[in-house]
């Protein structure tokens, strides 16, 4: 991989803009189909939000590794390699601690049913019928019910049950009660089938394996290559301009944010008025704050679970989840066995966050707020890891501004757009032939599994367009 566009060919069948899991997977599928593919990434590393970073003292932090559904095993096997699939292992300690309940589950179907019946005293037939309902949902179904309405139907008056059901998905994908029920149901049932999984070896390993596979399949990969424009000629996609250089392509798959694709990269003038208007109406999902806590070499922490959903709020409230007055935090605990051969521990605390709360602060206030986020996180963590301030020797915080800088996503959105973004994403090729988008739209196509799978769906559509 080089950091420039030196030596690129004048023309490719497909240019993929962005190397999130959707972009990577789409590039791989099309390269395997025999197309010439150029993959452009503005950052110096591949992966998008599937990323990691190293810090002095031997620390390594995974940004979004914590917990995907079993489907990722099948996705790696089907669209990548068996070797990748074999690195995926289950994490068994999914723990909740809040004023309404405190429990640990593996979050697979049997344990879920047992918890719902024994702990929450929900009748078995209600649980069964809820599970059956969500397992039969498809992303192409008509969507008329909100998640709130679905919960009201099965669990009226049970805001504790709703919290148990929604909180993990709210953190995984920014899901709220007001979103379409299928966007919740499909993701939840994906998890429920067999529980929660992680990639043994870390994010650096899976992205490294993907890079090797892409190269093997002939993909031309360029990092430090920022696309300024998607070129449209005669109403069709003709290529891209990246780092000031024009490169021709028969098709372009944008793994940038879908709104940014239409408005910044292509330009609204190339779309119908109605479509441009529909795109403007697509709501962005929220962003996140994270605090990365590195444990000093030689120190250990006791096993307290792999994923810990904590809150001091009396009830679950999506607005509150994103407020700067943080009451809810999710901790991902990374024990040494995540990276075989390592003896290091790391903890990543995540909260959903609003861009507006961080974007416009004066520099000194922004720094102070970040420090405040770090201090309050360590205080809150003390309850679960006594002596954390002595055990940790590196701490750093990320805000919506940080996510914006590294991903170029508008408002630093960490979960793409709401569900209506899917229609826009899928409709691009009808507006501008040869134009495609893959990336987080509408929760279902979000997260590691959703993003990779959406890359496959879009590669299939691009193949349909490119095939003579």
């Amino acid at each position, binding site marked *: 991989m080089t950091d420039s566009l030196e030596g690129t060919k004048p023309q490719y069948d497909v240019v993929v803009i962005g190397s999130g899991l959707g972009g990577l997977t789409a590039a791989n599928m099309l390269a395997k189909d025999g197309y010439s593919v150029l993959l452009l990434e503005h950052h110096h590393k591949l992966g998008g939000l599937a990323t990691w970073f190293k810090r002095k003292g031997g620390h390594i932090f995974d940004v979004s590794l914590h917990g995907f559904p079993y*489907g990722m095993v*099948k*996705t790696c*096997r*089907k669209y990548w390699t068996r070797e990748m699939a074999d690195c995926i292992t289950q994490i068994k300690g999914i723990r909740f601690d809040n004023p309404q309940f405190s429990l640990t589950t593996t979050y697979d179907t049997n344990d879920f049913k047992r918890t719902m019946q024994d702990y929450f005293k929900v009748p078995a037939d209600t649980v069964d019928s809820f599970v059956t309902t969500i*397992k*039969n*949902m*498809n*992303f*192409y179904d008509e969507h008329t019910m909100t998640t709130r309405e679905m919960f009201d139907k099965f669990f009226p008056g049970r805001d504790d049950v709703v919290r148990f059901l929604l909180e993990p998905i709210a953190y995984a994908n920014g899901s709220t009660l007001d979103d379409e029920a299928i966007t919740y149901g*499909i993701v939840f049932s*994906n998890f429920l*089938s067999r529980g929660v999984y992680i990639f043994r070896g870390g994010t650096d390993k899976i992205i490294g394996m993907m890079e090797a596979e892409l190269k093997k399949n002939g993909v031309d990969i360029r990092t430090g290559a920022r696309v300024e424009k998607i070129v449209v000629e005669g109403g069709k996609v003709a290529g891209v301009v990246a780092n000031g250089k024009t490169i021709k392509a028969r098709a372009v798959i944008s793994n940038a944010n879908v709104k940014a694709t239409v408005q910044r990269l292509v330009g609204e003038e190339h779309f119908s008025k109605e479509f441009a208007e529909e795109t403007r109406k697509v709501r962005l999902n929220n962003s996140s704050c994270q605090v990365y806590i590195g444990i000093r070499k030689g120190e250990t922490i006791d096993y307290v679970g792999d994923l810990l959903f904590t809150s001091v709020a009396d009830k679950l409230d999506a607005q509150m989840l994103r407020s700067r007055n943080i009451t809810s935090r999710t901790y991902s605990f990374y024990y040494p066995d995540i990276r075989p051969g390592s003896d290091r521990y790391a903890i990543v605390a995540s909260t959903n966050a609003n861009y507006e709360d961080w974007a416009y602060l004066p520099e000194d206030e922004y720094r102070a707020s970040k420090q405040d986020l770090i201090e309050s996180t360590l205080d809150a963590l003390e309850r679960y890891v006594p002596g954390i301030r002595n055990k940790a020797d590196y701490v750093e915080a990320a805000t919506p501004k940080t996510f914006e800088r590294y991903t170029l996503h508008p408002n630093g959105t960490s979960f793409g757009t709401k569900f209506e973004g899917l229609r826009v994403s899928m409709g691009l090729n009808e507006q501008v032939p040869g134009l495609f988008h893959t990336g987080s739209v509408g929760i279902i196509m979000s997260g590691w599994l959703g993003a990779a*799978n959406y890359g*496959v*769906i879009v590669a*299939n559509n691009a*193949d*349909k367009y490119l095939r003579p």
Partner: protein
Amino acid sequence: MTKEEIKTVILDIIAEIAPDEDLSDIKSDVPFRDQLELDSMDFLDIVMELRKRYGIEVPEDDYQQLATLDSSVAYLEPRMKDL
């Protein structure tokens, strides 16, 4: 293709998508997803493979026609008879 051949085509595709599943005693009138661990992406793979291998486009509105082996064969037979 004959009905039998179409049946083989579908089972071949499923065997490739879900290599861990035992397809030997699949019930042809019961939805795949009630007897196999197929999620919505596996199902889409069937649709995508039909296009790649045989050029058959199954529009979203018709996805439910592929719920069982019997209904799939009935749906695909007129579309695959000249292949």
